[in-house]
C-alpha cells in the first residue's frame, strides 16, 4: 500500500505530483479507479482545467462517493491542489456543477481591477510568497520566504475564516492560497512545480498522521 493515492481523472499533472511524492521519500499510486483509494493512508486530488468538467468526471467515475466516505470517516488526510482545492468548495462561479462541499465556500473569479482601479492580468500566473494566520502541521516546514507557483483565474472564498490556511497577495488584494478543515486541506498553488518549497510542503503531508 502506497503512502499516497493520487486521484487521476485525466485532468492535471498527476505524474508530476507522484514524482514529487517520490522525491519527498514517499511512495505514490496513481489512482484512475476509485477502488484504488481503498486503504490509502493519504489522498491527493490534483486538478487543472475547468470546474464543471472535473466535478462531472469525479461523479461519473465513482470517485465522489468514495472520497465523501473517506472524508466523513475523518482518518484519511486529503490534499487538493489547484483546481483540486477549488473542488472542495460548494460551488464555483466558473461553472454550474456543485462542488464536493467539504470546506464551505464559493470559488470566485479573480477581479480584473485592483482596488485603485489599475488593471489586473488574469490568470494569476507566477510565483508568490504566502502568509499563514496560524500554525498548521502542513506548513510547519516552510521557510518564511517560501514562494510557490500559482496559475489560476479563480480563488476560494471560504465561509469560515478559520478555514484559511494560507494567503497570498495578487492584484492589490489578499487571496486565499490554502484552506484546511480537519483532514481536508487544499493549496491553490502547485507544490509539485515549486521545487524545494513544494517539496517541504509535501514532506509535511507525508508526515501527517491519519
Amino acid at each position: 500500500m502506497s503512502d499516497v493515492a493520487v486521484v487521476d481523472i485525466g485532468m492535471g499533472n498527476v505524474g508530476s505530483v507522484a514524482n514529487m511524492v517520490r522525491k519527498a521519500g514517499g511512495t505514490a499510486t496513481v489512482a484512475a479507479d476509485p477502488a484504488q483509494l481503498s486503504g490509502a493512508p493519504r489522498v491527493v486530488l490534483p486538478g487543472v482545467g475547468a470546474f464543471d468538467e472535473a466535478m462531472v468526471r469525479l461523479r461519473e467515475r465513482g470517485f465522489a462517493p468514495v472520497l465523501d466516505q473517506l472524508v466523513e470517516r475523518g482518518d484519511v488526510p486529503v490534499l487538493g491542489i489547484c483546481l483540486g482545492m477549488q473542488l472542495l468548495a460548494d460551488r464555483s462561479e466558473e461553472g454550474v456543477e456543485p462542488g464536493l462541499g467539504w470546506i464551505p465556500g464559493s470559488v470566485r473569479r479573480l477581479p480584473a481591477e485592483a482596488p485603485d482601479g489599475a488593471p489586473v492580468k488574469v490568470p494569476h500566473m507566477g510565483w508568490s510568497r504566502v502568509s499563514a494566520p496560524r500554525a498548521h502541521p502542513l506548513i510547519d516546514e516552510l521557510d518564511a520566504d517560501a514562494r510557490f507557483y500559482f496559475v489560476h483565474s479563480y480563488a476560494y472564498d471560504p465561509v469560515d475564516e478559520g478555514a484559511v490556511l494560507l494567503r497570498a497577495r495578487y492584484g492589490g488584494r489578499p487571496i486565499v492560497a490554502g484552506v484546511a478543515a480537519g483532514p481536508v486541506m487544499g493549496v491553490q498553488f502547485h507544490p509539485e512545480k515549486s521545487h524545494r518549497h513544494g517539496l517541504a510542503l509535501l514532506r509535511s503531508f507525508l508526515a501527517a498522521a491519519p
Partner: protein
Amino acid sequence: MTVVGVELTDDDAEAPRVIPCLLLEGDRLVKTQRFAEPAYVGDPVNVLSIFNSFEVDEIVLLDIGAARARTPTPIAQLRHYAEECFIPLGYGGGLSTLAEVEAVLAAGYEKVVLNTALDRHPELVSEASRVFGAQAVVASIDVVGGVGGAVRTEGATHDVGAGPVAWARRAEELGAGELLITSVDREGTMEGFDLELVAAVAAAVGIPVIAHGGAGRRKQLAEPITSASASAVAAGSLFVYQGTNRGVLINYPTRPQLERLMGR
C-alpha cells in the same frame, strides 16, 4: 522560521518571471541567431537538471526540430525530461491536434506553446483553451521588423499577413492565456530586447506577455517589465552562454540577484 504571520506587500505578489527558453532539435539543445545557424548547447536532461537545481521560475522548451520536420511529438522523450523537473514547463513545436496537446500536458508540462497553429489550426487554440484552461495555452508570436513589421510562422519562414499587435489580439480572442513575443531580429544577438514591440503588444492585450529575443546582459532582464509592461521575460543565449563569445555555460541569477535586478 515559518510563514505564520508573515506580512505580505504587493511586492510579494507575483514576482516577474524570468524564463530560460531552450531550443530542442531531435535530442539535443541548440541555440540560433535570428532563427538561423543552430549551434549545439547540450543534452536536454543535463541542462534541465542544472536549471532545476538553480530553481528557475519556469522553462519553455521549443522543439524547432519537430516543428520543421513535422514529426510526431516525442512524448516519451518529453516525459523523461519532465521527470526530474519540479518547475513549471512549457513545450511547443508543431503541435496541431488536441490529442497532441493533451499528451504533452499529461507528460508533465503545464503549458503548450502554439505558434504555427495560430495560423493553420486556430480552432486548436480555442479548443485547447476551453478544455485545459487558457493558462495552459501560450501563443507564441515571432516578429520580423519590430512593432511595424510582420508576424511569421513556421520558423519565421511564412508571412501570415498581419502585424504583431493584430496577431496578438487574435491570439487573445482565440483563447490563449499568455503571449510569448519573440523579436526574430534580436534573437540570439544579445543586443537587447525590442522594447517598443513588447510595449505595443502588452498594451493591446489583457493577458500576460513574455518578452523574448535579445537579452544580452542580466540587467536588461528588468527592462521589458519596468519599461514595456511585460509580465515575464525569456532568454536563451543569456542563460546558456557565458557571454558574447558564446562559450556554453548554463547560468541563472540567484534569487537575491533577481530581486535586485527587478528592483525589489
